[in-house]
């Protein structure tokens, strides 16, 4: 994700609609995707509204962004996304254990069927299983995992957004992936059985 050039940013701050539209166009997909992945399927219907609210907050806070301090625009933007999403999750707290989870809340069995990664990975069931598995992650792990794997942010940037060290971020991502490997094991065994 390329940061906008400073001239466009300056125009957007001054209320130039075209410049702000460029800002929205650059960030609408990353923000929308991140919000969708962070707040999960529980607020799927509200993701677009949440994204709009974030953009409005960003517009109001834009004059406070100071690129000369060395902060990347993307880090600044995703800090807003993180704060807003965590706030949404806190305000509308709901049980986080999926009804499909086992007693330990770890495994997510899928109806026994053969899965071919070639043409069926995008099936609704698999997508839902991944969404539920990610949804079970602690929010800080989920944030680090989503920003790294889907938005391609650097560890240093994620560390800045999460206000912790790079080492902590690496550790969170590792734990998130191990948890996903464990929770999606059922799917993986199906895949293995199919191929062997």
């Amino acid at each position, binding site marked *: 994700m390329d940061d906008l050039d400073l001239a466009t940013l300056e125009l957007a*701050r*001054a*209320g*130039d*609609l075209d410049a*702000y*539209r460029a800002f*929205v*166009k650059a960030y*609408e*997909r990353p923000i*929308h*995707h991140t919000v*969708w*992945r962070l707040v999960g399927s529980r607020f799927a219907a509200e*993701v*677009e509204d949440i*994204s*709009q609210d974030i*953009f*409005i907050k960003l*517009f*109001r806070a834009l004059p406070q962004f100071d690129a000369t301090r060395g902060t990347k625009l993307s880090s600044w933007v995703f800090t807003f996304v993180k704060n807003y999403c965590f706030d949404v999750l806190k305000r509308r707290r709901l049980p986080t254990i999926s009804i499909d989870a086992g007693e330990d809340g770890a495994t997510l069995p899928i109806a026994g069927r053969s899965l071919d*990664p070639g043409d069926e*990975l*995008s099936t609704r069931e*698999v*997508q839902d299983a*991944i*969404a539920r*598995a*990610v949804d079970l992650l602690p929010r800080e792990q989920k944030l680090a995992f989503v920003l790294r*794997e*889907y938005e391609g942010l650097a*560890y240093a940037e994620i560390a800045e957004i999460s206000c912790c060290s790079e080492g902590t971020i*690496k550790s969170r*991502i*590792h734990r998130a*992936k*191990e948890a*996903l*490997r464990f929770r*999606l*094991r059922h*799917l*993986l065994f199906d*895949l*293995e059985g199919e191929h062997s």
Partner: protein
Amino acid sequence: MSHPPTDMNCDAFRQQLHFRHELDRAARGAFDAHATRCADCAELLLEGERLDDLLLQWHAPAPAARGGGEFADAVLRGVRGEGPVAGCAETTASLHHLLAGDLEPWLAARVERHLEGCRECADHRAEARQSRSLWLAWRAPDPSESFADRLIRRLEPETRAARRRRLLLDWALGPIHVPRAAAALVLTSITLLSLGLLQSRNGARPAPTVLSGLNGGSSGPVVPVNRQTVLPIEPAQFAPGGRGDPTGSLSREIGRRRDGALRSTLRGAPDEK
């Protein structure tokens, strides 16, 4: 001629016991002199010297040569990725970073070497690779086509206000141009003139300022006040409805004296009742 070393007490001696080699000549002389006189401190000095001898015998082992090579060669082999292999714990901790391509090449090589020989860790890697391909296939829906348009519409009043603010700021803080300055001068003059005209047309005669500070600084002409006749007003009198309430009792007082009594008060004459 050498001066006799100054004496040192036992406390100072003990403080300097382990730093005796760093003392300057005079201080060392005093230190030694004290040791010759004080048996306890001499005993301490002896113990200290024994301790030094003991510590000097403690050597770190020389780097062991591995595989017939020298220590430096072993380091270089490690850097080239030919060095020691990682253990199972290190491999498990590094697998996801290895698959994501985030490991340093020499670390990746250590882990890869371990994976070649460890069936369990190799299985772990295969599983991690499959789960990775699974979650990477997780798609998030795109925002609707009209997302940006709706957002811009929602923001339009705010962007308009921001533009106006910016224009005003540019105008105010921009370089001074003669036409701009002239326009500002003309505008100010017109405003002042029209205010003056309005005031004279209304024919309003502003009330004389009797007590400066009590009339809220009205713009009427200031009438000289005989200070002796103006009674000091205490703060308690300013209580609403109180005796000295400037908005209440003073106006009542002025009304009461409208028949000339006020004027005489201002002149300093005694109030005629």
